[in-house]
């Protein structure tokens, strides 16, 4: 497959690893932002091939993982109490809320549909005019254009039985929050290639300057990741801190302008709570007043309050890079993909699930 096989080339990987090994002279911590990158690092066995001096810290870039437990409670309430058809991405239905997951609510009679796109949810709404249909719109900047587009299309076609339960978060404010946290020590970042495809690379420039940290926009295949790590280590060893774009075949400086205009037609930036991290100012999207009838929170009278987390779950420290998944006391004991106690164990892109799935033993 073009654009895949050449980025999985064993010779290239070996060459890059040799370069990285010969370059590194001291310990560095690099955070890969995106859960897709974490998954690829673990799946391809890259973590074990890197020099011991390099610690990869697994960032908060898994939307399922950072969606607050209270939002899941709201989705469950909508599905069970308000009798809506709740459409969701597959990963989201297994995330435990305070009382139950969407999957469990399905077993209790709720109408939960797994879709691959909000436009499929729109079709469900069209096919079921007598029912209310809600799409659980989670994600980063990457999924925002399609979610916004579903609202625009619903509005244009006069579809009144469709709305979105939105929990959209943004990468740059989270990076700033992590860098401002006194406990964390991250020397460099691999920024998330797909997020930058939409938003461009420009918004990372100020972060490199403010925090004196190299940021490499990086793709997801083994060669991508190793090129990103090599570029980051090269800068760190030289004492530099610039923005580099490894994922040039996809990411443009200005991003995808058309996608951005669709996002900002429907959404505006506001404060958002991140599971495990807490409230981060201006870190997410909310539905604009103009489209408020498509906002499930405003459309339905939801009573669910902020949810309760398992107090032993270390998701927050793991998402901030302070702990590794297998250092959590619940990992592999009480917490596994079949009975996840925290969100990073639920999504296949979550750091805990990646560690569990690929055989890490409890520490």
């Amino acid at each position, binding site marked *: 497959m073009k654009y895949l096989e050449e980025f999985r080339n*064993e010779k290239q*990987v070996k060459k890059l690893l040799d370069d990285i090994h010969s370059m590194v002279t001291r310990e560095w911590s690099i955070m890969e932002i995106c859960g897709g990158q974490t998954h690829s690092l673990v799946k391809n066995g*890259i973590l074990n091939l890197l020099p011991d001096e390099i610690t990869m810290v697994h960032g908060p870039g898994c939307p399922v993982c950072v969606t607050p437990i209270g939002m899941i409670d709201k989705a469950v309430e909508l599905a069970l109490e308000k009798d809506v058809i709740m459409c969701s991405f597959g990963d989201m239905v297994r995330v435990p809320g305070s009382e139950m997951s969407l999957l469990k609510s399905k077993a209790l009679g709720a109408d939960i549909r797994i879709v691959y796109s909000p436009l499929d949810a729109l079709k469900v709404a069209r096919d079921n005019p007598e029912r209310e249909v809600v799409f659980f719109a989670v994600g980063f900047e990457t999924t925002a254009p399609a979610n916004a587009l579903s609202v625009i299309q619903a509005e244009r076609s006069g579809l009144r039985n469709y709305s979105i339960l939105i929990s959209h978060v943004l990468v740059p404010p989270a990076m700033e929050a992590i860098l401002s946290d006194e406990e964390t020590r991250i020397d460099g970042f691999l920024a998330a290639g797909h997020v930058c495809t939409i938003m461009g690379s420009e918004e990372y420039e100020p972060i490199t300057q403010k925090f004196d940290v190299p940021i490499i926009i990086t793709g997801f295949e083994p060669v991508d990741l190793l090129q990103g790590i090599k570029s980051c280590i090269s800068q760190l060893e030289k004492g530099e801190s610039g923005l580099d774009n490894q994922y040039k075949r996809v990411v443009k400086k200005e991003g995808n302008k058309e996608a951005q205009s669709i996002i900002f037609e429907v959404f505006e930036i506001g404060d958002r709570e991140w599971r495990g991290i807490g409230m981060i100012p201006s870190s997410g999207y909310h539905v604009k007043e103009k489209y408020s009838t498509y906002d499930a929170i405003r459309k339905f009278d939801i009573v669910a309050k902020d949810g309760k987390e398992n107090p032993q779950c270390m998701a927050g420290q793991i998402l901030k890079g302070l702990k590794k998944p297998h250092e959590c006391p619940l990992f592999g004991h009480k917490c596994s*993909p079949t009975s996840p106690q925290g969100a990073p164990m639920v999504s296949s892109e979550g750091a805990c699930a990646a560690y569990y799935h690929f055989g890490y033993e409890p520490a």
Partner: protein
Amino acid sequence: MPELDFEIITLGHGSGGKLTNDLLDKGVFNLFQNDYLQQRHDGAFLDIQGKIAFTTDSFVVNPIFFPGGNIGELAVNGTVNDLAMCGAVPKYISLGLIIEEGMRMDDLWEVLAGVKISAEGAGVQIVTGDTKVVERGKGDKIFINTTGLGVTHPSVDFAMDRIEPEDVVIVSGPLAAHGMAIMSVREGLTFDSDIISDTRPLHEITYSLLETFGKDIKLLRDPTRGGVATVLNEIAKFSKVGIELDENQFPVGRQVKAACEMLGLDPLYVANEGIFLTVVNKKIADSALSIIQDHRFGKEAAIIGEIQPENPGKVFIKSRIGGRRVVGMLAGEQLPRIC
């Protein structure tokens, strides 16, 4: 399709009365006619010599028609293959139908034709059966149960503790075709592709392996739900050995690979219906591979790994790029009702 004076199945067809008789006489018995069904008894009288293998399986696949087959073919081949994995020649199967009220007669007929074609293809006879109808909304068009009897090859000696270091793991064909075929037509997930289910009987190949190599064939398993990864984990766990796989050796079709990439699935965990895994003594591995490859259903067979004394209970894989990782059990389902 026989001349029938009804187009859809109603509750009456499960009542045991006239409608049931119409459906059975003109439909089922007529289609599957053989001496055993002719007896019109509550069960079948069978003469079997040798060690018997006995298995049962239920089929609830959604949708019931999918690229490369239907629930009827799956129900026969699934049970035939369970017998094949016991090292048996499949002989007789039962057919239990649970039909939802409102199912179209032509759909039912197509499913039954699938049963007939597969049974003939596998050389098994339908010797007994049952038909029930449930109210609309209480089923999903049709569920099928098949139970099978077969005669085991005399040299079968499958025991997990006979698997030992240096034994070799062979897969008989490309991975993940059935699961991806179902996924391509599942509501909400549809995508265009030429991927078809690999549902097919495997007993001819397994029988020739046993006939040629006897006890050097140490285990046969078909990696259906949970895929190849799940079966290999079970083997590692119960045999108390480690398994080392090479990702570069896995046969996966080009379109299946692309579809898996697109949906974020690992072919190692996707369901199969027409391939098997076998663990064999290293010294016969190459000859066993050619016997499998000589059969029309085994052309793309490959040696994918080796049994090792280290890391008992674990399955490792050498990744395409030379990294190494553990292959875990499937946690939760990738997609429900795949078979």
